[in-house]
């Protein structure tokens, strides 16, 4: 979502396509205890996944010759995981939306009323969910990340946030 376009970003809206949230394919996710400095396709299913073993204390695998220990971490209840990817060619998609607006008039069975004014502008961008998950595998170097691991702390945040942002009763 970050961009180097400077000023424009503060006006820009990045639209998340609701249709992509409905039923994206499940995804296999691993959180590794090391930084791989590129974003690109990798033959995970050829080298990594087939090497995972169930050991006496959790899952075992090795990556670049180092031994990793891990376990499945389930997404907290009430939450759902998505992998989102930005779309390219936003101008075309923006125009497509006008025709969608026309269709809206005919489709009256829609339960929620669409916001009346145009929320999408020419310079906006679009993002969509490409996959969903309900758990991921958390890996540590040589040992499973313990209960104090910061990822685990972060996963308790949504329940705390709910209390901070819940409406308070009026006097």
């Amino acid at each position, binding site marked *: 979502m970050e961009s180097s376009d400077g000023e424009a970003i*503060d006006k820009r809206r990045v639209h998340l396509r*609701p249709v992509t949230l409905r039923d994206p394919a499940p995804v296999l996710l691993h959180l590794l*205890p090391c930084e791989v400095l590129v*974003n*690109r396709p990798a033959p995970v299913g050829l080298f990594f996944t087939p090497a995972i073993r169930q050991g006496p204390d959790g899952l075992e695998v090795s990556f*670049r010759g180092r031994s990793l220990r891990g376990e499945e971490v389930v997404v907290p209840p009430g939450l759902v995981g998505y992998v989102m990817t930005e779309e390219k060619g936003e101008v075309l998609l923006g125009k497509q939306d006008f025709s969608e607006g026309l269709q809206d008039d005919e489709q009256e069975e829609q339960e929620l009323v669409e916001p009346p004014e145009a929320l999408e502008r020419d310079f906006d961008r679009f993002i969509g969910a490409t996959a969903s998950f309900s758990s991921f595998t958390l890996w540590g170097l040589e040992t499973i990340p313990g209960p104090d691991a910061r990822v685990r702390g972060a996963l308790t945040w949504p329940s705390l946030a709910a209390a901070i942002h819940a409406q308070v009763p009026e006097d």
Partner: protein
Amino acid sequence: MAAGVDCGEGASARQHVFLVPEYLKDASKKMKSGLMFVKLVNPCSGEGAIYLFNMCLPQLFEIKVFKEKNHSWFINESVQSGGLLHFATPMDPLFLLLHYLIKADREGKFQPLDQVVMDDVFPNCILLLKLPELEKLLRHVTEEKVNPEIDKKKYYKYSKEKTLKWLEKKVNQTMAALKTNNVNVGARVQSTAFFSGDPVSSDKEEDYIRYAHGLISDYIPKELSDDLSKYLKLPEPPASVPNPPSKKVKLSDEPVEAKEDYTKFNTKDLKTVKKNSKMTAAQKALAKVDKSGMKSIDSFFGAKHVKKIGKI
């Protein structure tokens, strides 16, 4: 909609790993558009932050990012550096409205909301005006006036008294959540606690208040956080920093029709406030407290802690 869009060779599109409330998935079934990420002001720091709007519900979500050194994702048949985990959690829009109400309060008069929520830097703030039940929300933090003879528009003015009352309720409900979630808020557990007669020490409640106050303070400006700490009677430091009274006296001594133009006066005033609030009384008190067991939101998401993991 294939998972992991491959670009053949080289770098591919950035992938973001998100956790969002399940009901967003259900809501998405009934909508074609209206979900969007926008940059708005962070009500604590005044800087930019990313939020998610659902214009159909309508509802505001805050985006927080978990970030720790030396992490990456394997996402199906691809690698994504950084290992970031984004959280979208519902946010009380009143914290953001408060930012604008406090800013507008310098003019000291009742104003309609669309004149209060204006921002050259973050123009998307007008989306806040579309959220439901704003009038009900604003009652917690403002005085309001209606002039039925001219129009039905409501005019609002920030009320510090009401806001502090509202924030106290927020602190209380956050404390309750901390207790049910068993968040470790206390200072170091001492072995005597296991052997002495009273298992719950008296200052434990205080730890919860202080922790909850810290969490809420991430959503309000520094000055208000200090006022709240006084309001909650969080312990003052024994040697409190004497507020420089000279400045204030001087200001009130000056005639109301100051020779300087008003804007100049404003910026000057702001500067002194900022200087004074570098480390306030409450903060100094906190600095003396053993914070070894305390965490703030940042500890979940920031990357302060560098774990010693060798390069693999």
